[in-house]
């Protein structure tokens, strides 16, 4: 009986913790439907009727859908490039014994330890010289070189691919690139999916790099757009509008999570299981 009571208390604590995780989002959703004066005067979890009014206020400051579109224009190609070229590099490193193979693998590990954010001065300088400031290219193209993803997929390749299979395909006269596209990519797809979701979320949420590279408000990605709320002081008078803007920025990620939580949690667990 005592054990049962203890167990119930544990469940209550666990649920309470889950509530703490969800509460700010719940308040956000509710407050998005309330007017500024309602929010200032009291708090509640019952939605009100100021959603349309808040939406009008938000759209008076910026076009959130444009922000979502801009973020998609950056995140989708970046995810595809990083997935495809990382898989290609990982496969190349595992399956071919060419000169420099070990060296490249070593450099990848070293660069995984160098925090990218700290070379942002040199990166900004490079992008200026390439005349790509205020364009999406510097947010997309660097995704081709994702050392962490190559590292993960290389280990994945070592576990999932059998050289015999590739030999057999070669015997049938298949070209190397054909083998990669038709046989290897499908075999690697679970590993690629795991990394792709991480890449997408990372790119979608990225703030500092777009902040330094983009100048034109019409080109802002969603996080930069949301953060520009800071500058427009009038909107801070209407808290409901802020909550609504934040809520809209969060929804796409919640949708991704609803469908892919297994992959996301799998990818983190993979980091935890180090032999």
């Amino acid at each position, binding site marked *: 009986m005592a054990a049962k009571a203890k167990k119930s208390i544990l469940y209550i604590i666990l649920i309470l913790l889950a509530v703490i995780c969800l509460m700010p989002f719940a308040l956000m959703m509710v407050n998005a439907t309330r007017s500024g004066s309602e929010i200032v005067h009291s708090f509640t979890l019952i939605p009100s009727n100021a959603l349309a009014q808040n939406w009008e206020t938000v759209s008076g400051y910026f076009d959130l859908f444009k922000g979502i579109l801009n973020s998609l224009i950056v995140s989708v190609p970046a995810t595809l490039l990083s997935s495809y070229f990382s898989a290609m*590099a990982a496969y190349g490193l595992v399956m*071919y014994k060419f000169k420099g193979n070990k060296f490249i693998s070593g450099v990848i590990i070293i660069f995984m330890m*160098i*925090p990218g954010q*700290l*070379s942002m001065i*040199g990166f900004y*300088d490079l992008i200026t010289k390439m005349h790509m400031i205020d364009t999406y290219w510097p947010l997309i193209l660097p995704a081709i070189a994702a050392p962490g993803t190559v590292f993960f997929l290389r280990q994945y390749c070592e576990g999932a691919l059998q050289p015999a299979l590739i030999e057999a395909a070669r015997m049938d006269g298949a070209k190397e690139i054909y083998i990669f596209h038709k046989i290897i990519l499908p075999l690697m797809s679970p590993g690629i999916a795991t990394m792709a979701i991480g890449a997408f979320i990372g790119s979608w949420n990225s703030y500092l790099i777009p902040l330094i590279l983009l100048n034109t408000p019409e080109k802002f990605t969603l996080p930069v757009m949301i953060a520009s709320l800071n500058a427009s002081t009038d909107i801070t008078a209407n808290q409901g509008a802020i909550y609504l803007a934040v809520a809209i920025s969060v929804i796409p990620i919640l949708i991704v999570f609803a469908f892919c*939580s297994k992959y996301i949690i799998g990818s983190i*667990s993979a980091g935890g299981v180090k032999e």
Partner: protein
Amino acid sequence: MGEKAVPGKKKRNIESTGYFFVAPFVIAFIIFSVYPVLRTFYLSFTDYKGFGDAALTGGVNYLRVLQDKFFWRSLWNTAKIWSVNIVLQLGLALALTIVFSDIKYKIRGLAVFRALYYLPNLIAATSVAFLFKTLLDWRYGTLNQILVGSGAVGSPVNWLGSTATAPYVISVISAWMWFGNSFIMLMAGVQGISKDYFEAAAIDGAGRMKTFTRITLPLLKPIMLYVGITSLIGGLQMFDLPFLISGGTAGNPSGSTQTVVMYLYKFGFETNQVGYASAIAYVLFIIIFLFSALQFKVMYGRKKGGN
């Protein structure tokens, strides 16, 4: 037997197609990763202003960093914010791991709880910052409404306006964002421990406390270290949350939330002392690199030594 020479030659050709597969990665890597790192290093020895010519000034920038008390303050702030965060984050993750790995309680719903606890980590720091900035507002924020309304505090707490609370508010928010992530990693570690250990311990009559200190904790130590150092490396680069919550690089109130990367950003992109900003970057670089090397040694060094 003439055939034998042909596959041999063909084999070599096949091996060198590896270059084709790694080429896109290597080219993009040199341009977008290697060059910026080297360029930042070069600029750290110049008086570059972000435009015009850059004159070499030797180690002047580095001497200035070492003597710059505001740099050290920003490093201290970063360390302080991170430390409180990691204690909360790892403590909570460990407690949850103990609860969920207990073979007697058999707590159900791991998948659901895990997903819910992880949720805050998915949201962009910008959205999190604005959400909490609004919830914690001194006069109109929901938290103060709850606290004052319930009589827990007499007058509203100025969470983000006081040096006594602002840095720790950021710690708590970071812990809230990251404890689910740590929990998933620790849990994966526990699931890697053979159930036999726990069952054997139970048969031997080991209590919960003893099982924890003698089996779970020692076996989880490498993962906890990995989580801790990874968090430290990320934590030393903290920017989005304190920058947005305090509303700029000054790290208000009174610079108490100014992190190293905020300080670096200030020189690199606000006051155009690009050379100096590069030197700040490299000093932080070195600190982080040392921790990364330590982590790498912890993770892989032992394995190599064992073989």
